[in-house]
């Protein structure tokens, strides 16, 4: 029997298809790819770096207002790949949640706790007919008091895992192949190596050499645990090091 578009199951996400699939969730993953961006995250020995493209399609758009990289608290960052509007509402809720956590419990929300919260919320959407899943894959980064640098990835299905390296978006599979090769022997990257691995992964996968203004790079480091977005000058330095190395 051919069930090209999933028959009647597309419309009701509470219902499994006869093969045991949730079509709405699969469509959500497709929506993430449809946004056209690719993102990469790499965890090093004492730092984490995430990088994504900064595509500004319209010349009349104010470049400074286009971003996919959001501080959630001083110490936690979130890189959202997929539908920007969905990303913004997720970030808004995550910021509220993290602020309340800090107020209620007296210490900063850890990376894995925030990721779990995002994932659990996403799972709820896969069980309610009234709400669709969000078309966003989130990469959460931060320095944990006990475990050091952490990179988590959360997806529309409600999965969340810690990663040594992760990718999301249009060319995620190619990125993973590149990263697997680079990180095969379980290397311990320094801060510079972490950033440059992430950026060169993106360059290789998209097959273009970037200018500093075309990518967004976010980092956390053990000796500076505040989440920060690199300035154009800092990105330029890393791009130069990469091209000198090659």
């Amino acid at each position, binding site marked *: 029997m051919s069930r090209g578009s999933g028959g009647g199951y597309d419309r009701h996400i509470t219902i499994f298809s006869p093969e045991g699939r949730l079509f709405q969730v699969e469509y959500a993953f497709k929506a993430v790819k449809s946004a056209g961006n690719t993102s990469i995250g790499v965890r090093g020995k004492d730092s984490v770096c995430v990088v994504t493209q900064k595509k500004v399609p319209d010349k009349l758009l104010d470049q400074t207002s286009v971003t996919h990289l959001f*501080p*959630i*608290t*001083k110490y936690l960052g979130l890189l959202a790949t997929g539908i920007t509007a969905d990303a913004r509402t997720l970030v*808004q809720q995550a*910021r*509220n949640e993290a*602020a*309340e956590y*800090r*107020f209620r419990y007296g210490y900063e929300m850890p990376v894995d706790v925030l990721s779990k919260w995002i994932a659990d919320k996403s799972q709820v959407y896969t069980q309610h007919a009234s709400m669709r899943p969000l078309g966003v894959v989130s990469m959460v980064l931060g320095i944990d008091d006990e475990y050091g640098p952490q990179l988590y990835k959360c997806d529309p299905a409600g999965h969340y895992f810690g990663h040594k390296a992760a990718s999301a978006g249009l060319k995620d599979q190619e990125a993973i192949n590149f990263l697997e090769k680079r990180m095969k022997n379980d290397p311990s990257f320094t801060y510079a190596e972490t950033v440059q691995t992430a950026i060169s992964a993106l360059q290789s996968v998209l097959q273009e050499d970037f200018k500093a203004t075309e990518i967004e790079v976010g980092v956390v480091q053990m000796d500076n645990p505040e989440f920060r977005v690199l300035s154009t000058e800092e990105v330029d330095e890393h791009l130069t090091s990469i091209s000198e190395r090659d």
Partner: protein
Amino acid sequence: MDQVDFNAPHSMGTTIIGVTYNGGVVLGADSRTSTGVYVANRASDKITKLTDNVYVCRSGSAADSQVVSDYVRYFLHQHTRIQLGQPATVKVAANLVRLLAYNNKNNLQTGLIVGGWDKYEGGQIYGVPLGGTIVQQPFAIGGSGSSYLYGFFDQAWKEGMTQDEAEELVKKAVSLAIARDGASGGVVRTVIINSEGVTRNFYPGDQLPIWHDELESHNSLLDILGAPEPMNI
């Protein structure tokens, strides 16, 4: 002699001060937290951070002032991080303190001095006394020890001091209040906030000036005479 009740609510008696100078503000406080006549904490820190650029001096009930600070820090964090995307202004912080103090006036007993620096208005001091008034002042004093400082400031305060002059003034004032107010004591803490950031200073008793009928501080006689041997039972 009354029994000391260790479980009584902790009050901070206190002397707190905030002054503006040409470049920022200096906040100062004593460090005594008392429960009746018992000193529950002789080294408390009454100058609390609300944001990187705004601090608050707390007086009155220790619990009430802590919880007000916690709420304001939480709201300011949301305001800054979620809405504004840039550091909060001192005025906003002071207003949030004031709203909590006013709307809960029947249940709170705390006087606060909010001080900080922002890029729009520079250094500012706001007093939020009991009842929830808000008033911006070039300098503010609060707490039980402040009663002894009104005359002193009338004479010693001047506009446009340097950072060192301002800090000396604050240190001197807190130390005078400690000398006369039983509910103030311990060490003097100061916090200086300006465009460059925040500096915390600490002045223990032996670094403070001696006033006319005070004795010099010296080490305990136990150090000189030698500690007695513990008994072997």
